[in-house]
């Protein structure tokens, strides 16, 4: 199976910022991403849990798989949104099938 080098960027960010982050990604030409729900977590601002919340609270995880040469642009765009907010940005090397998709 022919595999291609790529980068997997995982951004954990506050739910109210989700729309701004995805808009920034699309502006930066990153049109492929997947959003996972988050149940709870802990960080410098303490423990939290999603249960019973009604507002647009909590965090989401945004996963983008991109060609290595696009990762820098993506991180710039993401960083501008995430900068002053809670959350985590983490990049891993990965390999993908069907490189034409990325």
């Amino acid at each position: 199976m022919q595999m291609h080098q790529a980068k997997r960027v995982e951004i954990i960010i506050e739910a109210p910022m989700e729309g701004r982050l995805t808009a920034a990604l699309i502006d930066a030409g990153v049109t492929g991403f997947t959003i996972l729900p988050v149940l709870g977590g802990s960080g410098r601002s303490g423990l939290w849990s999603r249960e019973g919340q009604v507002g647009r609270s909590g965090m989401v995880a945004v996963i983008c798989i991109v060609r290595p040469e696009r990762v820098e642009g993506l991180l710039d765009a993401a960083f501008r949104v995430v900068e002053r907010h809670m959350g985590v940005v983490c990049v891993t090397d990965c390999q993908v099938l069907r490189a034409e998709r990325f």
Partner: protein
Amino acid sequence: MDGILALAADNLISPIILSFALGLFAALARSDLSVPEAVAKGLSIYLLFAIGFKGGASVARHGADATLLTSLVAGVALSFLLPFVAFALLRLMTRLSATDAAAVAAHYGSISIVTFVAASSVLAARGIGSEGYMVAVAAAMEAPAILSALWLVARAGGRREEDGELMREVLLNGSIVLLVGAFGIGLLTGEEGFRRIASFIDAPFQGVLCLFLLDMGLVAGRGLRGARGVLSAGAFGFGLVMPLAGASAGLAAALALGLSPGGVMLLMTLAASSSYIAVPAAMRVALPDANPSIYLTLSLGVTFPFNLTLGIPIYLALAQAATGG
């Protein structure tokens, strides 16, 4: 005074308050009792739809009058002004930074729709009528306070995010749209529409409110547990004083408007209550440096239970005394 106490005692052993207390207890005792997020959101959709619809149907029944408009204006003005009161009190009573104080102030200018619903239930249980359009006033009071808070931060030299999207987001917030939309539906379909869905929005209302307050108790309790040490005594005091200050402003406005006793009490409750849905999300976007534990704990953990248990009977007694109703 005796009246207030009797009323408060009566209020305290209602299923609604006891459900809240049960949730609070369960969370503080670290029970794993929990209401799934989706169910809590479903219950809140039901409550917003039902309260909005009933308000609209009631206006359709009784007709609107000029006071509707003046009440909306008064509500917006209260929401704009109360953050300044709150900010001043916070600066006096606590050592919070300007940003934290402004974020808290935004919550107290805005409103808590569940507190409003609980107050309406108390009126309904006592057979006291009120202006149906108070629901629309509630919706109008959600957003303005956010602008005041941003202005307060800017004046204090605090850096704040430029974000044209924010006001659109807040004004088209799901709970505002649903409340106003359901109000409109009730208004348009009137008596006939109400009859068709009364057994959905009227009969089970109190029961759904119980389950929702169970969840609010759980969330408040978890917040209190997590936020031990976050609140100074001054901040805690603010959470009890500010609703009384808000209610006084609401009382003055309501008397000037010439509302019915029930309406006076509802406007007092709105002014006294603090937001826990629209404003927290807006603050995360606009003032990310403000500490969410502080404003959430104050709003949900201190002021909300205070209003639910003692505040509402006090506001009702004062409203009745002031209007002679």
